[in-house]
């Protein structure tokens, strides 16, 4: 960069020095020969409006972070537990309720089975958690089910896993948000009317928090998670204490309670209850997907966090179910605004004292947190998919705050749409949820089995056993969930996954195709251009914009001609006279267009030029230099350049043709043209 130099005198007569200005300094920084790094100021907008927008953005999502600042965004185990496990742990806030909802169909007596079902689910959880601990170790780069299935099974299975995962993440946001709203309604039933608005607002808030970047999310959300976990443990402990001491007495039914059904407690109903309850497992995979966000040693920290999370979840889920049963708690009707099961359970410990409200608030918050988990995981997976060419590239770009902005916004949009569609009612969303989750579980377990069989590291046998049993169990559950819930929404997932996979493959093929066309072979040396060049300038009249365009044209080639398309022969003659006098050396071609068309004759003229080119010579590159007046505001934009725009569109696909816009800014010249009278 060349800067001005200012001579300065020194104290002594002959001491001179020269100050060298550094024009690059505010915008760039040298890091090596011929290598610049753009500073924040370089991407600052230069217009007042742009600057204002940037300032708003800065207020909303914070100052941009440089890529090097990422290492500071790594999570400690405590923060990671808050962020990643909230998904799983928070499901204890609604999983029990989902079991009960199925069982009430078989009458009050059937509720007893809920404990057995919850224990069965806890066992399943233990197996899955053990399996995923191994995933953390084997795939420290994250990606979870997708990475495992893709590298260990087949790309197609990987894509299926990815599709399932994406659905899972979207559903997590939808379910958690709606459940959180349920919790808030439990303490403030008046909110019931605003259920959807409330949910959407929450998603917006979480979106903004995430656009600000990962570290701050950790800080924002750590407190409620630990508060929920702490209070929930207190509730379970007090409930168990009451059961042991025989103080647990059935609560009176709340007015919104569902009425008991009369179905018989058959295998189908049991399986259905199990399938509904298995929603407790959702989110278990989050940690395995987010391993790179951990502080080093990443894999080890992630695996340990996973264990802590699974134990907490198991204890809370089973505990809540046991307490709920002991107090004979029955869920409220869908969308009635009645208290949730977890709220009723909390009431057994805290009554309606302040702690009850604190707990409900914490529950709502941890559910929002759970939604937030997806905001971490979804964009990450989308970015990995984008890198592999299965998703549009912008999903792989990180925004000012190092967050994958596109992924975050896409997730928020889809989840919000789902919420609106289902009226914000949690139960209706659940069937869509579980299927996707279990597809992932099964695929990643299978992948791990392949992994151990392939590598045969020490202890591969028992590791295989763990993953194989996990795979079988989750596969069975998957089949059960999909079949028993097929009619109540699971079918959607069955359709959605293949559709998504098809889209992935389509995008990939597009990228592959364009890459193939654009690729330059590694051994190809670019030679100086050898094609001849000629320039055509379509002109509307003689004005400064045209003069400037002519100057540009002459710098491109000596073969320059101006083309004037006119429907008025007199005007054409006048222009020709003026042109030859004022722009000597550039031949003017007047095309009379009796039908007043403009673009057509222009392209036709270019065709004729091409045809006139000697066939034995390589076709020349034709530059079409379009003089353009730069509009300064919206109405000028309407007034000017409409023809230029149409012409540009018409020429876009023409072979060997380059369209050059020569913008003319009015500010550039302040003195009027000194030359003679114009037409």
């Amino acid at each position, binding site marked *: *960069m*060349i*800067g001005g*130099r200012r*001579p*300065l005198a*020194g*104290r*002594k007569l002959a*001491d*001179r*020095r*020269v*100050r*060298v*200005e*550094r024009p*690059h*300094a505010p915008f760039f*920084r*040298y*890091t*090596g*020969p*011929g*290598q610049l790094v753009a500073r924040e100021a370089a991407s600052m907008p230069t217009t007042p409006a742009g600057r204002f927008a940037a300032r708003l953005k800065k207020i909303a999502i914070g100052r941009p972070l440089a890529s090097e600042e990422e290492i500071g965004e790594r999570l400690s185990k405590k923060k990671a537990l808050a962020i990643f496990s909230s998904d799983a742990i928070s499901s204890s806030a609604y999983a029990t309720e989902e079991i009960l909802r199925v069982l009430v169909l078989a009458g009050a007596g059937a509720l007893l089975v809920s404990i057995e079902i919850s224990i069965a689910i806890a066992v399943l959880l233990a197996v899955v958690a053990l399996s995923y601990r191994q995933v953390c170790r084997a795939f420290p780069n994250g990606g979870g089910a997708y990475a495992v299935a893709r590298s260990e099974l087949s790309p197609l299975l990987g894509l299926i896993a990815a599709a399932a995962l994406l659905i899972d993440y979207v559903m997590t946001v939808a379910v958690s948000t709606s459940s959180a709203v349920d919790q808030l309604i439990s303490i403030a039933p008046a909110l019931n009317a605003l259920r959807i608005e409330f949910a959407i607002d929450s998603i917006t808030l979480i979106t903004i928090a995430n656009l600000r970047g990962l570290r701050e999310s950790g800080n924002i959300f750590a407190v409620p998670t630990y508060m929920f976990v702490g209070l929930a443990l207190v509730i379970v402990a007090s409930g168990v204490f009451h059961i042991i001491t025989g103080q647990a007495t059935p609560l009176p039914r709340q007015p919104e309670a569902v009425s008991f059904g009369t179905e018989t407690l058959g295998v189908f109903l049991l399986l259905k209850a199990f399938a509904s309850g298995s929603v407790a497992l959702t989110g278990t995979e989050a940690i395995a997907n987010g391993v790179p966000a951990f502080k080093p040693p990443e894999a080890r920290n992630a695996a340990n966090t996973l264990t802590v999370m699974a134990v907490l979840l198991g204890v809370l889920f089973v505990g809540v179910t046991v307490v709920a049963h002991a107090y004979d708690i029955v869920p409220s009707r869908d969308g009635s605004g009645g208290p949730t099961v977890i709220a009723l359970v909390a009431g057994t410990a805290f009554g309606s004292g302040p702690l009850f409200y604190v707990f409900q608030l914490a529950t709502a918050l941890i559910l929002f947190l759970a939604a937030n988990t997806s905001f971490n995981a979804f964009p990450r997976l989308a970015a990995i998919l984008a890198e592999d060419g299965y998703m549009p590239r912008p999903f792989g770009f990180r925004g000012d705050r190092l967050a994958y902005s596109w992924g975050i916004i896409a997730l928020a949009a889809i989840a919000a749409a789902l919420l609106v569609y289902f009226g914000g009612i949690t139960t209706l969303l659940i069937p869509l949820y579980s299927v996707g989750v279990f597809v992932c579980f099964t695929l990643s377990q299978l992948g791990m089995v392949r992994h151990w069989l392939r590598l045969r590291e020490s202890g591969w046998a028992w590791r295989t056993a763990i993953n194989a049993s996990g795979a079988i169990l989750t596969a069975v559950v998957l089949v059960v969930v999909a079949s028993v819930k097929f009619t109540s929404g699971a079918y959607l997932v069955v359709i959605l996954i293949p559709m998504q996979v098809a889209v992935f493959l389509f995008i990939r093929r597009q990228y592959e195709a364009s890459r193939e066309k654009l690729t330059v072979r590694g051994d190809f040396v670019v030679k100086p251009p050898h094609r001849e060049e000629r320039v055509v300038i379509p002109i509307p009249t003689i004005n400064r914009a045209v003069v400037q365009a002519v100057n540009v044209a002459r710098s491109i080639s000596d073969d320059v001609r101006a083309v004037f398309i006119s429907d008025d022969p007199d005007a054409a003659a006048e222009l020709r006279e003026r042109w030859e006098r004022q722009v000597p050396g550039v031949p003017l071609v007047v095309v009379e267009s009796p039908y007043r068309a403009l673009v057509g004759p222009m392209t036709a003229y270019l065709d004729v030029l091409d045809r006139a080119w000697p066939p034995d010579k390589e076709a020349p590159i034709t530059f079409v230099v379009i003089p353009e007046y730069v509009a300064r505001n919206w109405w000028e934009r309407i007034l000017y350049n409409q023809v230029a725009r149409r012409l540009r569109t018409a020429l876009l696909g023409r072979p060997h043709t380059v369209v050059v816009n020569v913008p003319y800014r009015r500010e550039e010249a302040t003195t009027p043209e000194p030359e003679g009278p114009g037409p």
Partner: protein
Amino acid sequence: MPNPEQTVVFRRAVVALNGGSSDARIVRLAAGVARQWKAELVAVHVVEIDWTQPLDADIAGRSEDVQRVLDLAEETAEDCQYKIEPVLLQARDVGAALVDEATEQRADMLILGLPYRKRFGGDFAIGSTIPYVLKNAPCAVWVVREPIPEESA
């Protein structure tokens, strides 16, 4: 808490850069000290122009290496969350230019790094700039000698 009036070391300091490893050290040091009194820092890099070229020849402005010296100083200061104003000079003599610049900037401190060098493996070499600055600078001068490298200690 000591009386701040008594402990103010400087209000505006010129930090002389030489493009070597000591630059980052003295910038960090200067930023650390300056922070206490919100003192201003000016990083000055003087490119010595030999007599075969005119003093205002286009040399420093074109040299990326030279620019990098200042960029690095600015970056180091930013790392310490402090601002440093970079100045690039061309002169016939580094010492004279530093002294003149410090005078013009009304600096009350001139901070120089001194790389540890031995001349022809013998005596410790101090060069000519530091004696010149010590003799002529109107303000206080702080010379920070870099630690002796392990192998020659």
